[in-house]
């Protein structure tokens, strides 16, 4: 197998071999663009009808477009969030997730397309809608010199109806910090407070824009707990994330977003199943090694072969067949194995197979 430098101007990693997922003629790992799985993806339980009235989708977008000078940030996004589900937009930084979720929340005006939230539009029902949505935005820093309790009381005062501050404090486990100034809170506590500000109105829909970015694993799990609890009460959640684990754990359905478009959509299980195999074997061989793609493709149980960052990735159906066969091939060709990792296929692998790039580029 020979590596070649990608031509300058490419957006992918510096080194790549071939990326079957991107080519329609590579049938084994191709995921149909826009997997339309809306019906099968509906959560098992009935959509929440906590408040009398419309029972349609919580969020509906058609042909959403947003242009910034020189950039098409959102390039025709269609999506539908069913009541009671948790819907995630997964994609790398700059994919257009934030622009999309802010247009849905009526904070940015779309250049094209249509948004309906709870069956209403921003032009006609802004006042009513604002009363029923909870939101955390990226990078909001709450007033540092107010206490946790004071911030919640402030936000609570904006809403006609809602829950009491005490209840929300307990829900986000900040009861002991009620008198602490926001400036003294840890990152995880601040983020839970931000979610608490969104929960004081007992929203129909909770919008979370990258809720756990930059948090440590424990804080992340605590926040997931808060979100799960909200869903348990029948709430609808729409979130954006670039953590595949978050999307996999929290979301009933996921839209994978890249360069302003949804490139795949479905339940996490469906998206992974579309890879055609559930394991991934990654290994590193010395640079310049002669290892033809065909040799790897021919191994038992291997469904796809791809290379990125100088690593070779095999999508594999049966580990117990593929790994020993890989070892024998390497041995017979006298290739020294430098690193070998296997894991269950994740949404990250789905993203890599679709774009040839990782979700996070750090």
């Amino acid at each position, binding site marked *: 197998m020979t590596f070649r430098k990608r031509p300058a101007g490419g957006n992918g990693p510096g080194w790549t071999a071939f990326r079957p997922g991107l080519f329609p003629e590579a049938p084994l790992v191709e995921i149909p663009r826009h997997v339309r799985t809306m019906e099968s993806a509906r959560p098992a339980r009935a959509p929440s009808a906590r408040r009398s009235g419309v029972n349609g989708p919580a969020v509906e977008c058609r042909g959403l477009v947003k242009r910034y000078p020189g950039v098409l940030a959102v390039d025709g996004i269609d999506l539908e969030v069913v009541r009671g589900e948790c819907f995630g937009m997964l994609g790398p930084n700059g994919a257009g997730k934030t622009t999309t979720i802010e247009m849905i929340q009526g*904070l940015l005006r779309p250049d094209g397309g249509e948004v309906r939230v709870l069956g209403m539009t921003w032009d006609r029902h802004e006042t009513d809608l604002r009363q029923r949505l909870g939101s955390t935005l990226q990078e909001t820093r709450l007033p540092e010199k107010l206490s946790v309790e004071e911030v919640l009381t402030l936000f609570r005062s*904006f*809403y006609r109806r809602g829950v009491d501050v005490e209840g929300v404090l307990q829900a986000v486990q900040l009861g002991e910090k009620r008198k602490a100034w926001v400036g003294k809170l840890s990152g995880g506590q601040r983020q839970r407070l931000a979610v608490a500000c969104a929960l004081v109105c007992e929203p129909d829909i909770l919008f979370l824009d990258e809720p756990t970015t930059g948090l440590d694993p424990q804080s992340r799990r605590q926040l997931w707990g808060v979100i799960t609890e909200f869903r348990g009460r029948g709430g609808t959640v729409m979130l954006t994330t670039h953590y595949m684990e978050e999307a996999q754990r929290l979301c009933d359905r996921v839209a994978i977003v890249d360069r302003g478009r949804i490139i795949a959509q479905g339940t996490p299980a469906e998206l992974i199943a579309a890879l055609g195999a559930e394991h991934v074997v990654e290994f590193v061989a010395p640079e310049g090694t002669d290892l033809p793609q065909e040799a790897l493709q021919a191994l038992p149980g291997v469904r796809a072969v791809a290379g990125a960052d100088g690593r070779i990735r095999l999508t594999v159906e049966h580990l117990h067949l593929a790994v020993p066969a890989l070892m024998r091939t390497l041995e017979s060709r006298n290739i020294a194995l430098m690193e070998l990792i296997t894991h269950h296929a994740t949404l990250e692998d789905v993203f890599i197979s679709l774009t040839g790039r990782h979700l996070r580029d750090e």
Partner: protein
Amino acid sequence: MSERRSPLGQLTLWRFREFVREPEALFWVFAFPVLLALALGIAFRNRSLPVARVAVPAEAPGAAQLAATLDGDPRIEATVLDSATAATRLRTGRVALVVHAGDAPVLEYDSTRSESDVAQLLVRDALQRAAGRADVATIRDRRLTEPGARYIDFLIPGLIGLNIMGTGMWGVGFGIVNSRQRKLLKRFLASPMRKRHFLLANIMARMAFLVLEVPVVVLFGRLAFGVPVRGSWLALALLAVVGATTFAGIGLLVASRARTIEGVSGLMNLVMVPMWIFSGVFFAWSNFPDSFEPVIRALPLTALNDALRAVMLEGASLAGTAQWLAVLLAWGLASFFVALRLFRWE
């Protein structure tokens, strides 16, 4: 279901709390004007005129006699010294003048030094009187030292005006830009908060401070220097409220588009520094050429300072301050409406 508080009240409390919990802000609002008044009040306090120090070289005959004659005048302090020492002291400014005794005494001094010039007038006068000159015209003195005419009396209303301007503009402008920079304004937009509540809360929190900051300076002036308030307290209070509203409006305008604290700080200084100089805070604006007058009079701080002085020092009634109130209100209303049009929430 919980009891809901008033959003306007909560927003005002927020602005108020953030301010009270910021020690630096408290210093600038309360301590700074008092310290400035104290320092300037001491530096420019009215002293009895200094005595003129003169030297008489001992070598010349009649030196002791001459020195005694001069010393007899309470405004002159004459010392007999050897001529070298006298010359040195004159050069270093420790004496204002050297008087050489003789049939026709000689005065040696630098006529460009004002204290030397005063000294030569005093010495001439004393010598002529000693020689028998009599006054031909009768002139009477009326000394002015009562409160109301001193520098500190001029200064205190100016400092109150300066403080109302500074805290109004900073309090409103800084808070708004800070919220914008923190993306807090955007977060509020995602909630049903009413925009006018937000703007009104900034101005109301500002008023709450006014109740504290103006009395602090007025009382300090009164207790430390006996600066009077001759007009009604009600007129003073109303002036302060109108002034604060005006500058809150201007602060809102300055902050309406700025994205960063640095950006708004530059704009604030651009607006305020000229008024520090031209609007008669530390010295009367009449020191500037007449051609500046229409512009200076149109500045909001000039109007506020002139009105404060009229009420505090001259006992003007509220009606008597109408011209200045009109200037302030015009600035305030115009700024507020332009600010509302320009205001950027993100």
